[in-house]
């Protein structure tokens, strides 16, 4: 493709018509905001966007704030054939593709364009990189020049097919990827991401392991079973062995012999023991006989001793008896004296109580009389206070009211004084009295006027008086009101004057003082607790006196007499009563002390009596005991002698001694016989024999038990059919192993196939890159120096190899990145151009970060590309930077025509300079129903709308 001309009308910032003619290397320059980006956008719109595109994208095509119809016309050549593409957007959208074979309109024009440019114009929405094919790849958009070259699926396919044309069909067409895809799917079916088994492989492996475990377990059980069968055989063989029976017979014979030998030894020992027992019996009897003789002698001696002691105890008892009787007498005398002292004490107590009562009665009577006097005085004072309060209450005035009265009078006086001060005083000098207006005017009289007054003088003249300069009515009214007020207040108090009221108040105060004084006298002197309390006190004193008299009456006749005498005698004199009381108390205390002393003596005598009684009692008991002991000893000795006399005892003792000697001789004889064959040895031999037999029996028993146990166990385990189960399991295990082995084999094959295919594909792709790498080596050498492009099999730029080191794309400087991106585009474009598909490179504000040296170098490679026939469009705002390249320089401002906005386009002369249309091709397209003529296209559009 070769762009010849771009014509833009009313597109965004390019209002009016702008026409740009393009050469091999076209540098389109302009100031900021002059419309360079708009021109680039217009070019993209006409190439990639649907003419009926709507929404924000379509609106963005219109000049800001207008409803104009953006329109772009592009003249281009492909394969030497000229084309004109025109698209109008937003308002009456239109698309038109004029070719040498005819004109395509509307969607047909766009379909034709898709075929021509190998792009995809989206059915709806804006165009994206994926749609733009190789164009998007070779177009460095503004602000994205330093990004890695974006490669869409279509662009990759096209580049790869172009590369394959150059290096051969290494990718295997559609079949290769399909086979690779299947191989990958096979691999993924058997291996997970970590390369471990999955799906059926995994299940089979687990199943196999499970079978192995079960097999191991069952084998172990079976082995155990077989071992037990062997053990059973051994045990049975051992149990039934011949030597066992012979050994049993031998053991039984030996046991019998030893039992007999042991019995013999036992008999000898028994005889020796019998002789020993006889000796011990004789010795025991001798001891008994000796003991009895000795006992008899001791009993006689004991009796004598007891008798002497009994006598001594009897003397002691008589002595104690005498001491007891003396103590009893002393105690009786003391008791008598105590009774007397108690009687005296009681009498003294009664006398003292009488004296106390008498003294308390006198005191009560005196208090009673005194209280009566105070009551009388108090009542008198109370009455006086009440009279004074009544007199005070009669005076109906107080300080407040008096103060009000004083204030009223003061206000009245003030008002009058003020009125008088403004009154007009008129003095008459008439000689005689005249009466006018009811007023008699005495000669020389003066009048004060406080209100307008008219005098009619005798001579008929009239004199009018107007006091003050103003109306005094208000002053007069105030004076009058204060006066009335004062008079009313006086009247209310009932006093004639203020002075009378003042006097009355003073009197009231005097009455109140008097009442308070009387009250004080009563309250603080005569009846501090009040009259009621005083009255109660008097009553209580009277009651007390009465009670005391009654107590005196209740006393015994003797005492009554005494009391009455005492009372009578003592009522007159309280001092005497007190004296008597003190004397009686003293007498009572003396009597009490005496009684206590007597009680002490009696108590001492009692104690002495008890001790004496105890001493006698104990002595008497001891005597009785000894006497009883003597009696008992006498009886026992007598009984004993009745049974065996002392003589008989002595002769029996001699006989027993002789028997012991005989028995000892017999023992010695039998012991000598027993020692010759000791039973311990025969017993030991017997035990050894018995143990051997028991051991043999135990062994047999153990073997029999073992056989029984094994038989039971084996019967159970045989019942389980272990061998058959194992065989069955083995069959299942073998089947699983076979399946698993097969799955493993398949997995191995799938893995190998996948790996081999992947490696072959990777090799092929690397081989495919070689044409690009060759071009890039040349470009990199010219601009950056010695470096190798790092590109993956998917044609994605990964970075650079420099000095055997890989530098990722993003690790490169921004300047190097944009240079690398431009060079990759140049390499792609060169490849395509050589393959017969030249495609322009568009650099929109690219290479702005390059230093001067690299910038010059890259300009050179661009220049050399254009020299080879590569078209390059450069949009820049720095025209001077590009001044030294050989190409067409287009200043945007110079391309703007004066055409008014909205005016119909002035199409340049159709630049088609193609050969005659290829009618045969067109016919084929029509036959396929894939294209329409202009007329048909219009009709279809109308129908669609």
């Amino acid at each position, binding site marked *: 493709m070769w762009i010849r001309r771009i014509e833009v009308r009313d597109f965004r910032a390019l209002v009016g018509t702008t026409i740009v003619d393009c050469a091999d290397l076209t540098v389109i320059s302009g100031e900021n905001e002059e419309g360079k980006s708009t021109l680039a956008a217009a070019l993209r719109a006409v190439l990639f966007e649907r003419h009926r595109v709507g929404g924000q994208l379509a609106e963005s095509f219109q000049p800001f704030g207008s409803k104009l119809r953006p329109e772009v016309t592009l003249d281009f050549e492909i394969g030497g054939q000229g084309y004109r593409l025109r698209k109008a957007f937003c308002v009456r959208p239109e698309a038109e593709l004029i070719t040498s074979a005819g004109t395509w309109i509307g969607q047909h024009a766009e379909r034709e364009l898709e075929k021509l440019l190998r792009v995809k114009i989206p059915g709806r929405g804006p165009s994206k990189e994926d749609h733009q094919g190789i164009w998007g790849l070779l177009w460095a958009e503004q602000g994205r020049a330093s990004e890695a070259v974006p490669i869409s699926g279509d662009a990759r396919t096209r580049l790869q097919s172009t590369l394959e044309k150059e290096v051969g069909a290494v990718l295997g067409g559609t079949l290769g990827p399909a086979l690779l895809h299947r191989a990958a799917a096979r691999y993924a079916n058997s291996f997970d991401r970590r390369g471990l088994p999955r799906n059926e492989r995994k299940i089979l492996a687990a199943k196999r392991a499970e079978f192995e475990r079960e097999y191991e377990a069952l084998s172990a059980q079976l082995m155990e079973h077989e071992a037990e069968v062997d053990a059973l055989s051994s045990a049975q063989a051992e149990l039934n062995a011949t030597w066992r029976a012979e050994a049993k017979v031998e053991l039984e014979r030996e046991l019998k012999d030893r039992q007999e030998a042991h019995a013999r030894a036992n008999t000898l020992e028994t005889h020796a023991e019998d002789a020993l027992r006889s000796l011990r019996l004789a010795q025991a009897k001798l001891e008994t006989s000796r003991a009895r003789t000795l006992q008899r002698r001791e009993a006689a001696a004991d009796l004598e001793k007891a008798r002497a002691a009994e006598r001594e105890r009897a003397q002691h008892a008589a002595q104690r008896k005498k001491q007891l009787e003396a103590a009893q007498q002393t105690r009786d005398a003391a008791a008598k004296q105590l009774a007397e002292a108690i009687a005296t004490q009681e009498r003294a107590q009664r006398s003292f109580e009488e004296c106390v009562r008498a003294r308390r009665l006198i005191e009560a009577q005196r208090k009673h009389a005194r209280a009566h006097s105070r009551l009388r005085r108090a009542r008198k004072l109370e009455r006086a206070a009440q009279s004074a309060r009544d007199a005070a209450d009669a005076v109906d005035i107080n300080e407040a009211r008096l103060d009000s009265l004083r204030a009223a009078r003061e206000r009245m006086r003030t008002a009058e004084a003020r009125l008088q001060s403004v009154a007009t005083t008129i003095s008459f000098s008439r000689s005689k009295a005249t009466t006018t207006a009811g007023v008699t005017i005495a000669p020389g009289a003066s009048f004060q006027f406080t209100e307008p007054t008219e005098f009619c003088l005798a001579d008929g003249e009239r004199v009018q008086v107007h006091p003050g300069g103003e109306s005094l009515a208000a002053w007069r009214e105030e004076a009058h009101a204060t006066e009335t007020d004062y008079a009313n207040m006086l009247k209310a108090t009932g006093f004639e004057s203020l002075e009378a009221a003042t006097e009355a108040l003073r009197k009231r105060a005097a009455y109140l003082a008097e009442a308070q004084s009387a009250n004080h006298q009563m309250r603080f002197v005569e009846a501090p607790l009040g009259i009621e309390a005083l009255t109660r006190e008097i009553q209580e004193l009277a009651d007390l006196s009465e009670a005391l008299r009654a107590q005196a009456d209740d006393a015994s006749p003797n005492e009554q007499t005494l009391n009455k005498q005492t009372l009578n005698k003592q009522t007159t004199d309280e001092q005497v009563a007190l004296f008597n009381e003190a004397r009686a108390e003293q007498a009572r205390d003396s009597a009490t002390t005496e009684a206590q002393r007597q009680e002490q003596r009696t108590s001492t005598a009692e104690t002495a009596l008890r001790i004496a009684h105890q001493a006698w009692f104990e002595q008497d008991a001891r005597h009785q005991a000894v006497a009883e002991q003597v009696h008992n000893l006498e009886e026992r000795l007598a009984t004993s002698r009745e049974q065996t006399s002392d003589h008989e005892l002595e002769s029996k003792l001699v006989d027993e001694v002789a028997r012991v000697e005989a028995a000892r001789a017999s023992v010695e004889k039998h012991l000598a016989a027993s020692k010759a064959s000791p039973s311990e040895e025969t017993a030991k031999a017997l035990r050894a024999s018995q143990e051997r037999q028991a051991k043999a029996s135990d062994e047999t028993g153990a073997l029999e038990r073992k056989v029984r146990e094994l038989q039971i166990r084996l019967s159970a385990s045989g019942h*389980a059919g272990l061998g058959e189960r194992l065989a069955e399991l083995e069959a299942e295990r073998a089947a699983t192993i076979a399946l698993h082995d097969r799955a493993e084999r398949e997995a191995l094959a799938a893995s190998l196939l996948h790996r081999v295919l992947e490696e072959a594909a990777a090799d*092929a792709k690397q081989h495919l890159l070689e044409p690009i790498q060759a071009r890039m080596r040349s470009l990199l050498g010219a601009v950056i120096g010695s470096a190798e492009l790092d590109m993956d099999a998917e044609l994605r730029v990964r970075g650079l190899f420099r000095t055997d080191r890989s530098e990722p794309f993003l690790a490169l400087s921004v300047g190097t990145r944009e240079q690398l991106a431009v060079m990759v585009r140049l390499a792609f474009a060169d490849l395509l151009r050589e393959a017969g598909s030249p495609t322009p490179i568009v650099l929109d504000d690219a290479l702005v970060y390059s230093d001067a040296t690299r910038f010059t170098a890259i300009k050179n490679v661009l220049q050399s590309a254009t020299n080879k026939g590569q078209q390059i469009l450069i949009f820049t705002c720095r025209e001077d930077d590009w001044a030294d390249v050989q190409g067409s320089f287009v200043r945007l401002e110079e391309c703007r025509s004066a055409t008014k906005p909205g005016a119909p386009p002035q199409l340049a002369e159709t630049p088609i300079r193609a050969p005659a249309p290829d009618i045969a091709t067109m016919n084929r397209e029509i036959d396929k129903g894939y294209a329409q003529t202009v007329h048909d296209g219009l009709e279809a559009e109308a129908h669609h709308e």
Partner: protein
Amino acid sequence: MAVRPARGIRLLHTADWQIGKRLRFIPGDTGALVREQRLRTIEAVGALALERKVDAVLVAGDVFDMNTVAEETLRRFAHTLEQFRVPWVLLPGNHDPALAESAWTRLARLALPSHVHLLTSFEPLLLANGRLAILPAPLRAKHEPTDLTEEFANIETPSAAIRVGLAHGAVTNRLPARAEASNPISDTRASQAQLDYLALGDWHGTLKIAERTWYSGTPETDRFRDNDSGNVLLVDIEGPGAPPVVETIRVGHYRWTSWTHSVHNAEDIAALHVRFETLDRPWDRHLVSLKLQGAIDLTARAALEEALEHWQARLRFLQTDEASLHAAVTEEEIEEMGGEGFVRQAVARLRSIQLDNEHPDRHAARDALAMLYSDYQEIKSDVDPAH
């Protein structure tokens, strides 16, 4: 059919029933069917014994495949014998030696009917009203180093009785060396012990050792070995000293066959079909072990798979061994599959691995090529359904 001797005796000689044996290389239901057939065949033996009015059925060892058979198997076996009221004379063999605890002790505990005789000791058994004396040599261990039949010569029997020895082991000098490893039996035992007939077990094929010494073989074949198994022997003996008249009678249900077949092209596959078709009908009584050898291309491989699947469905069991069968990919196939591009390279790589006998992945490479070809065919049929 031989006529029953008037005064002599008639025996049915069989051995190596190996009840409870699992055919581990035949999985699933087929394995169960083949296993079950062993009892059915014993029923056939029982029916034959009744039909031919035999005096005893002698089973010369290996009645059970192991002593630890399942209880159910044991009881089903006992029930099978109970149904046929002929004297069953059973001898322990090396698979079921009369150990302290064994299938025999278990069987004895089942209270068998009186016509079932378990010969677990060397005590002779007299049958047919004393006309038949059976001298047993039961194995009491899996491997007996000595000839247990030596005792036969010392055992006296009634003079009118026909002496029949019953033993399990390898007759010396008459069998392949590996069969003689243990439990030896002298090849002159019959004459040396004055036996009228020596009924032997252990060798699974029917085999005459001497005029009076026979292996009956197993009545139901259980392995792919061509040694004339699947028979029982009907033995008529006129009287003491008379030579036995032995008739071989086929009772086995299944036919076990194995052969090797070379495959290189489509003709070989056709020949394989023909070979299968020569088998007796019905085909479902056949178990076949087929060893394949040769090298086939991917197209022939598909045809072979088809042929094997065809016969697997018809036979009771088909076992194939393809270890010696190699995949050969033709240039046309590779050309067709690889065309151009990296697939061609991949195929070339896989072939080189396959042809490298030292390469550990050579078998995997063969399978991988087959996979690749299968994928290729599928992709092609997806693209072009007519393909």
